[in-house]
């Protein structure tokens, strides 16, 4: 079974240490093969030909030697949902019918989607804020693939993509950010408006059209043509650092202005997680968000930030069913989710108020 891959840890995988505010960094490159229509316009036979060509090319690329490849048709509903929840594939790819595939690197940092909106979507994902190494890896993978496959490329317009909004570099660089300070102080709309002016988009946890559950936002470049990859990344990076500053400022201010209320919220969140018997994923996300915040303030030990990050994914509906080993209906999922959280937070200490006083 494909999901066995996720219950057995990877050889080289060590648990990454999480940092405040920034959860993960991702770069996605959109590429198409020459002489084939883009997936949205292709016949099934053409999609199959592209899939085979890409799978063959990818199997010899450096960095993907022990990778795992699968056709989306061969995945169960649950497997697809788990991949979406892990942010390895897009919700769009999970809905496709035939001729699409996924190649996942052994360390799970790279996931290549074949025949999503474009023939190839090369993605590299790392915890924390780390554009340098993520870009280096994505660039190297792309170069490796290009040595075996001819890309649709135009000297003036760059890499040709199904949607003109991805034209040029075909690059979407994004960061997943935890911004409870800006949400609670009702400043998030202002931030979204300001960064939109800079050609930067803010979306919810699962990309386009999704909610910002747990105060988690995906922030990415909107423009892909007219600037180099490094220029796009630098601009995004400086905006992100600014958002981190604003977030920290908002947190400090909340603590100063109404610290008791904030500590009440964080402390109750821990209480809920320790004692719940039924919990929906949205409530779990909000509680975990407050745990992460408390850990950032130094009111909970650091390991609870790591735990919150792990739980952000494990409380999602697909993952709850993965640990149950079978599809489970929504009501019972809430009970299984509560059981998991109760167990994980059993030994969680009381919130330590001293950082607020200091």
């Amino acid at each position, binding site marked *: 079974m494909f999901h066995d891959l996720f219950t057995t840890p990877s050889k080289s995988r060590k648990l990454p240490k999480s940092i405040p505010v920034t959860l993960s960094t991702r770069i996605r490159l959109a590429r198409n093969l020459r002489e084939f229509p883009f997936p949205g316009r292709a016949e099934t036979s053409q999609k199959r030909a592209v899939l085979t060509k890409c799978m063959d090319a990818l199997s010899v690329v450096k960095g993907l030697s022990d990778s795992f490849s699968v056709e989306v048709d061969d995945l169960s509903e649950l497997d697809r949902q788990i991949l979406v929840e892990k942010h390895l594939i897009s919700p769009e790819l999970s809905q496709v019918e035939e001729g699409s595939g996924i190649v996942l690197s052994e360390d799970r940092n790279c996931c290549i989607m074949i025949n999503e909106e474009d023939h190839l979507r090369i993605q590299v994902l790392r915890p924390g804020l780390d554009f340098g190494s993520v870009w280096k890896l994505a660039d190297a993978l792309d170069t490796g693939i290009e040595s075996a496959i001819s890309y649709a490329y135009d000297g003036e317009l760059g890499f040709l993509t199904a949607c*003109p909004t991805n034209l040029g570099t075909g690059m979407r660089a994004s960061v997943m950010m935890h911004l409870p300070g800006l949400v609670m102080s009702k400043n998030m709309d202002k931030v979204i408006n300001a960064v939109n002016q800079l050609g930067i988009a803010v979306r919810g946890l699962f990309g386009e059209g999704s909610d910002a559950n747990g105060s988690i936002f995906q922030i990415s470049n909107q423009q*892909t043509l007219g600037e180099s990859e490094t220029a796009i990344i630098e601009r995004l990076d400086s905006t992100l650092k600014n958002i981190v500053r604003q977030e920290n400022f908002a947190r400090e201010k909340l603590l100063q202005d109404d610290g008791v209320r904030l500590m009440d919220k964080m402390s109750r969140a821990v209480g809920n997680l320790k004692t719940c018997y039924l919990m929906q994923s949205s409530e779990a996300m909000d509680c975990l968000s407050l745990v992460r915040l408390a850990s950032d303030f130094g009111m909970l030990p650091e390991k609870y930030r790591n735990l919150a990050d792990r739980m952000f994914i494990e409380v999602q509906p697909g993952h709850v069913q993965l640990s149950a080993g079978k599809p489970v209906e929504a009501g019972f999922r809430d009970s299984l989710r509560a059981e998991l959280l109760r167990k994980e937070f059993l030994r969680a200490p009381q919130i330590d108020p001293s950082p607020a006083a200091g």
Partner: protein
Amino acid sequence: MKCHHCDKQATVHLTQILNGQMHKMDLCETCAQEKGVTNPENLSIGNLMEQDGAEVDSVSGSMVCETCGTTHQEFKKGGRLGCEACYHVFRPVLDPLLDGMHAGVRHQGKVPAGSKSRVDFEQSIELVRKELQEAVEREDFEKAAELRDKLHDMENESKTIA
């Protein structure tokens, strides 16, 4: 920032989500009034693009990509192109869109080594083809014969590369 329609300073900045994609347009106050931006009820960036000029409209009305069959209507509706040839076919309607969508209209990023040498080669073939046509037009048949042979060789070479 300049107005999308004239050269005046843009003061109205319009953002609209069409088919899940964000589109932006900057307009000066006069153009904004003229295009009815003050009445958001029946406003669409698609329509604003439409009003760009009758010449674009008359050309685009019958546009269709012969390689994949995508029509201009389909592109307008779904915002997606069908194949690499579409970028050539729809270029006249695409250019003003790209201008509003991106930081610039020329690629400044990575150049794929293999694909580039193939693209460069194709561009040089295109150049010779143009020279040949010019030679024929000015009835320089000696030059034309020379260019025709050169083109022939290059086309054969391009088949071996592909």
